[in-house]
């Protein structure tokens, strides 16, 4: 029963996206479309260039996901496998990042982007996503690495492996479950991100899909079929990823509980 109530919004958005505007005016919210039409999708995709925003989102998301996890895994290696002075301090420094409100970075970030001449580019969003992905990725990976037995690398050292090959050839392959969890989480968060895109980009050139949808919402106040069609386009990739990797997803949320 609760599940049905929970799905009403999703149902509404799906049904509406296949209606024509007249159909919405007459038929109301509940009813199935009298005849299915892709009007909304065509309008959103073609006229409003949602396709371009989709490409932007893809170009931004993939390097951000890979980059943030790769850099964090490098950092997590010494934090979990090597004893050195300042280890705790650096780890806490990373974890503290989980609690910061994004607004505290907003204005300087905007200034920094302008200073570096990368305002309104893919690059600024990718770098920002990588940087802000560090806390959660370092946190989860460090905790995973630390649970691996120490004998592994003792043996590897005898074999003459240096630290990088231990990290690359032994630790990383063993950490696949944790890496998978992070890929899913980071993908969803970065794909859905809105605020950095709003402040650090300005034009269609680099703006992600969430911003494209926001523009759509501003321009089509009555055409709910276009709006919901756009919303569905923006959601499809994350839904697919969610359904395919659900297990990892839920595990990830439990692991990285503090980040919302």
């Amino acid at each position, binding site marked *: 029963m*609760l*599940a049905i109530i*929970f799905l*009403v*919004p999703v149902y*509404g*958005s799906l049904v509406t996206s296949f209606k024509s505007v007249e159909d919405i*005016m007459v038929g109301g*919210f509940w009813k199935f479309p009298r005849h299915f039409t892709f009007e909304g999708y065509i309008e959103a995709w073609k006229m409003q260039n949602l396709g371009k925003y989709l490409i932007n989102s893809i170009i931004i998301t993939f390097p951000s996901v890979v980059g943030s996890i790769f850099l964090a895994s490098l*950092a997590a290696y*010494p*934090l979990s496998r*090597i004893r050195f002075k300042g*280890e705790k301090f*650096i780890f806490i420094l*990373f974890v503290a*990042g989980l*609690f*910061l*409100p*994004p*607004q*505290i970075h*907003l*204005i*300087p*970030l905007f*200034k*920094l982007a302008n200073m570096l001449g990368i305002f309104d580019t893919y690059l600024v969003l990718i*770098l920002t996503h990588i*940087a*802000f992905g*560090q806390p959660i990725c*370092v946190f989860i990976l460090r905790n995973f690495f630390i649970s691996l037995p120490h004998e592994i690398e003792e043996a590897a050292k*005898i*074999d003459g492996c240096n*630290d990088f090959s231990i990290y690359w050839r032994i630790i990383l392959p063993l950490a696949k479950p944790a890496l998978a969890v992070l890929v899913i989480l980071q993908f*969803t968060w970065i794909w*859905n991100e*809105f605020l950095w895109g709003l*402040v650090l980009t300005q034009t269609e050139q680099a703006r992600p899909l*969430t911003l494209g*949808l*926001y523009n759509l919402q501003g321009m089509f106040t009555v055409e*709910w079929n276009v*709006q919901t069609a756009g*919303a569905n386009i*923006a*959601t499809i990739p*994350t*839904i697919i*990823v*969610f359904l395919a990797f*659900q297990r990892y*997803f*839920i595990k990830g*949320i*439990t692991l990285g509980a*503090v980040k*919302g």
Partner: protein
Amino acid sequence: MREAVVTNTSPLLKRRSWYSRIGRQRLLVPTVFLFPSLLIYAIFVLGTMIYSFVLSFTNWDGISRTFNFIGLVNYIKLFNDAEFYNALKNNLIWVVISLILPMFLGLLLAVLIDRQIRGENIFKSIFYLPMTISFVVIAVIWSWIYEPNLGILNISLRAVGLGFFSKAWLASQNTALFSIIIAASWQLTGYSMVLFLAGLRNIPPELIEAAELDGASSWQSFWHVIYPMLRSVRTIVTVTIIINSFRVFDLVFAMTKGGPGTASSVLAMFMYREGFLKYRMSYGSAIAVMQFFIILIIMIVYLWRSMKAEEEVY
């Protein structure tokens, strides 16, 4: 060849070579590995944060090349700004409702799903689905639900004869904020459910069986056995909800922009408006710094209290 080396090495020798190698490169290796991550983190996350503190003491407008330090002027202005208190009040309302609605619903759902074996994964997916959706999408979907003439909420109200209740939910002073919080709760419920479910699964079943053997009703065993065992999960959910409630921006921005007037404004919205729409960047920084400290203080108080409570239990 390699294997031969390993088998010829005595355990003692193994240990020594391990430690001596570590000793030799004590700081070199960690530095190399940490450098790229720390560098980008230090610039984009820590650096920008510190710079916000600096800017909050200046009169920078966001466009000029230079600015002057003006001491506490921004903060004095902030403490006399009614909009600040209004936004803060709305954030607090957000915290309270989010601590009641999604937390209660999430716990309820987790308990129900925990009992029911069949179709568990389907239910989990359904309630979890909203978590994977972007705030902007949620804004579109819920704006459609709240739509005055054709939205499902008003249609349903009219259908059951409560038509006089129907209104322009997002455009009305009294309901705008609450309407947004409900949309946010729709998303958060799945989150708290997942965490509570994980917590429930961590409780040893013997404990509950023992309580039932002692003749406890299911309500009693929930209240006296299960609920206390969920303490750490409750702390995590509470902390997350509080932090998120003070961070909220996307949903408000995409649904009402803080309107009508400032009825649904929150600190993040207020900050964005001052900084980026009115070009008062330094004032915006001061707001962000206040937001930072408010979260910090609440977190410290809360964690300190829950730690004390934990001590009392043991």
